[in-house]
């Protein structure tokens, strides 16, 4: 599983402050730290801090890339902001995200095609998040068909089955697992899968424990990536271990260190 480090987000105070004051220090510190601990992408989200999301996104992308060689995951519902980010990305980025809503898919897949970007597709539409796996997979299929229609390799599409907190949407858990499995049958090669990991533990008491157990269970069901806390040591150790058990990495005694140090 690839970790998309979630820390560069205007929801956090230090990042909000950085954006307002155009001071790259905090952004670059988190970029370096997440890279050093094995994240595969840096999520970039301007958050609610500013009104000019377009220029904030552009600035965040620029300063993050000065500090890290990781690809970026541009996280916004404002597609103009995403496009502004894509324009300054030095390597193919990931667009986060698009629901299975036709006009949005048209815009996003066109952008993805133009900038050779990957796309996170959400298994939801105008009607919201479905509960059962079958409906989630049907929405995933729409995303796959649209992706294919734009000539984008399906392996550049990450489907997010959408996770609800386990204290309020407990019955969604098994459906998410089933969705992860079925998505792999959609095409050959299949789309990848991603979740926003911390959603599962919103409002619960032991969030880290729930996050990492969910991560390894989802991996066993085929999860490829997660937007998560890339500095959570225990999460990283759990992910590294799951990768060994799933035969995704070759074992050696120091496998956790190898996973952490992959960007060094």
């Amino acid at each position, binding site marked *: 599983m690839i970790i998309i480090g979630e820390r560069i987000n205007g929801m956090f105070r230090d990042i909000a402050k950085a954006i307002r004051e155009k001071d790259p220090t905090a952004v670059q510190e988190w970029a370096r730290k997440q890279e050093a601990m094995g994240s595969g992408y840096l999520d970039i989200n301007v958050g609610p801090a500013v009104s000019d999301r377009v220029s904030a996104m552009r600035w965040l992308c620029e300063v993050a890339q000065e500090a890290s060689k990781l690809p970026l995951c541009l996280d916004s519902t404002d597609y103009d902001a995403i496009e502004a980010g894509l324009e300054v990305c030095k390597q193919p980025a990931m667009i986060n995200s698009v629901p299975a809503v036709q006009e949005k898919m048209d815009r996003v897949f066109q952008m993805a095609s133009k900038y050779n970007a990957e796309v996170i597709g959400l298994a939801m539409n105008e009607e919201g998040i479905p509960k059962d796996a079958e409906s989630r997979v049907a929405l995933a299929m729409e995303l796959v068909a649209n992706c294919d229609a734009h000539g984008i390799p399906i392996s550049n599409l990450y489907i997010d089955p959408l996770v609800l907190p386990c204290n309020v949407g407990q019955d969604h858990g098994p459906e998410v697992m089933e969705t992860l499995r079925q998505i792999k049958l959609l095409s050959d090669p299949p789309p990848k899968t991603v979740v926003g990991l911390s959603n599962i533990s919103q409002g619960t008491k032991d969030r880290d424990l729930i996050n990492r157990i969910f991560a390894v269970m989802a991996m066993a069901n085929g999860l490829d990536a997660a937007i998560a806390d890339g500095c959570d040591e225990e999460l990283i150790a759990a992910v590294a271990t799951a990768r060994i058990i799933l035969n995704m*990495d*070759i074992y*050696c*005694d120091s496998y956790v*260190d*190898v996973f952490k140090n992959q960007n060094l």
Partner: protein
Amino acid sequence: MAVEIMKEKYRSQVREVVLGATKDEGGTRSTTIKVGGESTLPFLHFEGAVPNRPVVAMEVWDVFPEEWPQNLKDAFGDVLNDPAAWAKKCVDEFGADLIALRFKGADPDVNDASAEDCIAVLKNVLEAVGVPLIVYGCGKLEKDNAIIGPIGEAAEGENLLLGVAEQENYKSVASAAMAYKHSVIAQSPIDINIAKQLNILISEMSTPLLDRIVIDPTIAALGYGIEYSYSIMERARFGALNGDRMLGMPMIGNVGHEVWSKKETFIPVDEEPGWGDQAERSLAWESVTAMALLQAGMNILVMRHPQAVKLIKQNIDELMQDNSY
């Protein structure tokens, strides 16, 4: 009808390791050799770069190789008593890309040669040839640990490829490489997990050594479990191309050493009429073993018979021809 050619996209590539050092670089070699660096599986030029061809090292011993079969000894004429002349002949006549000097004589059960004795031989060989050198001890741990430091020191800056670091015994070789600017053979017993762990252990001593490690996965001879080595090498190389940095080193195989002790190389035809001529068979055993290992990604072949060397070099020439579509 245009067939859509299938090209794999790999995340990574094999590390490139330089062997030997010229005068400008602090050594005395007339040429250096680069191995590794490929960004595809063996010889698939159509989808990736194979910047450096696999190379052949020929073995030279510090003592007369009594135990070699007669036809192997005959191939060298009268140089086998003189390591320098032997090395020179390998380079000048047989086209060896580099020399693998084995201090068999250091074995307490052979001559128990001292570090000074070994250094004298090493200096002679360094003087006789301009190619980079691989250095092996006698295979007995205690003795090898005792001689490797002085040998490394005496050849400081030459960037020898020093053998062999093992999981339970890597510090003396790695230290010698660190202190005196050499490269290291990291040997694991047909075990991919240990191969990986050993590289980590060595890199913990010195991170820059990561680019000076060559993996010896321990190869078996044709007919003696070579398929295990073959699959371990394929897995390691596939892992390396897919981003496993701790398995992304070039690989070396002790082909001659494994092959020439096997009975297929020395049983005469009158004892095994079904096996055909011993001389031809023995060198075919070595060249086919090497051929198979090349197909699994071997970068450095350590070999013995000049004719087998010639055959494998020809095979490498052919395989290095571009096959892009």
